[in-house]
């Protein structure tokens, strides 16, 4: 019982992170219909910025965890969204209007590029940072096993919920959100109505990158070790989450992230840690077999 509760907590924490990354995939897919393979690497870039930031602040003698976290979050969001913008500008904008596979290949190239850039400039070795937030709340003890909710897990869930609220408001209520949704529905028509489509797409990429940046900082803080390869695995998982939830659907992305996080946590605890990725992908395949457009996705209507 306590063990199950613990896995539920771990799974939800992991799922929140996947969900944050998955939103970037799903938004980009919604607006330009491409899989942005470099998105996982954007998240990885943010994790490296976080490590540099935390180390720098510690060197300057900032010992308040709240202040350090806030400053690093702000810096990571700023720099990472510039990365998101640049990736779109360099690798995708020149390809607007070409065949569907072309930007996909370009994004795979961008992903390889970013991974190797970070490996070259920041080194290939694992970067550890000292744990920042320790402690937690003991919830339940059964048969000598204590389920524990750590403060960093609380923080991750709180930040995710707050971001989601802000994000939903941004998409539903602001003029940028309206423009963004309009572009998703019909880019040509939106352009005819005098909206700068390129700008909206750029902002979408920056927004997705900003959410991935927050995920990167949170993961760095939570696990304390990163390397240049984390982007690939997280990216694949988050993309799976986006597809599982129905690609193009924002609540779907979050739901998919949570499901993937829970599957991973429970599977690796009760069955086998080695095969947790197999479980994730198998469940994805099963879901797609019975609901080809994902859990919350609208089925694509084909017109002749």
């Amino acid at each position, binding site marked *: 019982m306590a063990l199950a509760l613990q896995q539920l907590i771990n799974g939800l924490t992991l799922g929140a992170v996947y969900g944050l990354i998955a939103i970037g995939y799903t938004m980009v*897919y919604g607006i330009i219909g491409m899989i942005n393979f470099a998105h996982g690497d954007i998240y990885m*870039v943010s994790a*490296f910025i976080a*490590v540099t930031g935390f*180390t*720098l602040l510690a*060197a300057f003698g900032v010992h308040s965890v709240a202040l350090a976290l806030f400053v690093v979050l702000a810096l990571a969001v700023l*720099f990472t969204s*510039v*990365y998101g913008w640049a990736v779109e500008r*360099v*690798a995708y904008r*020149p*390809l607007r209007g070409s*065949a*569907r*596979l*072309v*930007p*996909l*290949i*370009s994004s*795979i*190239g*961008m*992903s*390889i*590029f970013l*991974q*190797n*850039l*970070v490996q*070259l*400039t*920041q*080194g290939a*070795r694992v*970067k*550890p940072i*000292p744990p920042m937030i320790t402690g937690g709340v003991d919830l339940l003890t059964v048969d000598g096993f204590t389920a524990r909710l750590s403060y960093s897990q609380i923080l991750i869930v709180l930040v995710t919920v707050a971001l989601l609220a802000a994000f939903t408001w941004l998409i539903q209520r602001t003029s940028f959100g309206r423009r963004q949704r309009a572009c998703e529905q019909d880019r040509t028509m939106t352009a005819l109505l005098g909206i700068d489509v390129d700008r909206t797409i750029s902002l979408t990429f920056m927004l997705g990158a900003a959410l991935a940046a927050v995920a990167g900082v949170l993961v760095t803080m939570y696990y304390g070790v990163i390397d240049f390869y984390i982007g690939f695995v997280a990216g*694949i998982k988050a*993309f*799976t989450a986006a597809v599982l939830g129905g*690609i193009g659907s924002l609540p779907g992305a979050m739901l998919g992230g949570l499901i993937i996080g829970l599957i991973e946590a429970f599977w690796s605890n009760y069955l*086998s840690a*080695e*095969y947790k*990725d*197999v479980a*994730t*992908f*198998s469940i*994805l*395949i099963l879901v*797609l*077999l019975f609901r*080809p*457009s994902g859990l919350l996705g609208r089925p*694509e209507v084909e017109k*002749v």
Partner: protein
Amino acid sequence: MPATLAERGRDAAAAAAIALLLGIPMIGLTTVDQGGALRVQTRWPWLAVFVIAVFCGRWLLRYGLDRLRTRRTRARSDSTGTAARPAPGGRLPGALAWLTFGISLALPLVFSDNRYVIDTATTVLIYVMLGWGLNVVVGLAGLLDMGHAAFYAVGAYAYALLSTRFGWGFWEALPVAALIAAVFGLAVGWPSLRLRGDYLAIVTLGFGEIIRVVLLNGAEFSGGPNGISQIPRPSFFGLPFAPPGEAPTFAAFFGLEFSPMHRILFLYYVILMLALLTNALVLRLRRLPIGRAWEAMREDEIACRALGMNVTHIKLSAFALGAVLGGVAGVFFAARQGFISPESFTFNESAIILAIVVLGGMGSQFGVVLASLVLVLLPEIGRDFAEYRMLLFGAAMILIMIWRPGGILAQREPTLRLAAKDRRV
């Protein structure tokens, strides 16, 4: 209209400002491990070099683009708008293909002592095989498969297990391994029947990862992360390539002096033959009803259904054939390396194969050859500055896509068209 100096300067300055923002966290700052704890190190001179390089690069790019545009506008106004799109060089790829064929036949004769050249050429041919296999699925049938390395792995492991456990030879194992790969192809193809586009992409990607993870963890049959070693090398119709011993060897039989190059050259010709067979097969199939059906389905699946074509068979046959070709390449890979591990069949491998198909121009057989040459030789040339080669590889993928979005040889034409002008049909 050519931009003024000030405009170009502003444009380049904007690019430099972005470069500064991009560069600060990655180039300007880094963390180094110092006695267990990290310490921040600054590299401002490098950052300055980077920003200046971006400024100059952007300026030159802008300048070049403007020049190109004015020249194009002038050329267009000269020709009064009517003519002057050069006819696509229909015969040229044909002649080039024969030339390449000739070179590939003659290559071992010229470089018979140069092991490095032959080895690299063999690698190119493996990728050509893989590319042609995937080309059937992606290029002809239009099904986005991002896990082609899975079939490659299935072929390689099938041969490795058959040969190390049951003592099968290369030639006996080849058709069986191909058959096993085909079964896996059908297993992936089956869920694909209901999926479209990107959903299919993620399912095939997931399938590729599943295969890799199972190989990585199924230690009792696949050797886990250590892989399988001491896989027997192919023999020349029963004559092994070995130093002279008791059993008759290739060198002894033909009265040659033993040389390790014999096997390398033999392997090269084996893969060349396999690749040529593949090419002949695919080109033939494209003219059969099934090949026509693939292309028709790529262009419009709904129309195919409406015409009463069996989409199930079409999709599954494309997947099965792609898998067989990938599997054959895998068998050859295992036999050539003598050692395989899951490391060789990661998603990167699938991405490279997909890149070969798309860079070459989807559906173009010769394009795959060109793209394999580019993608294999690029990292080889870059070996001198080995650290940068994957970086350049990624950048090259983006740049080629920007310059030639249709692939090096853009040939997305149906093989058959009504009232064809040229008699290519």
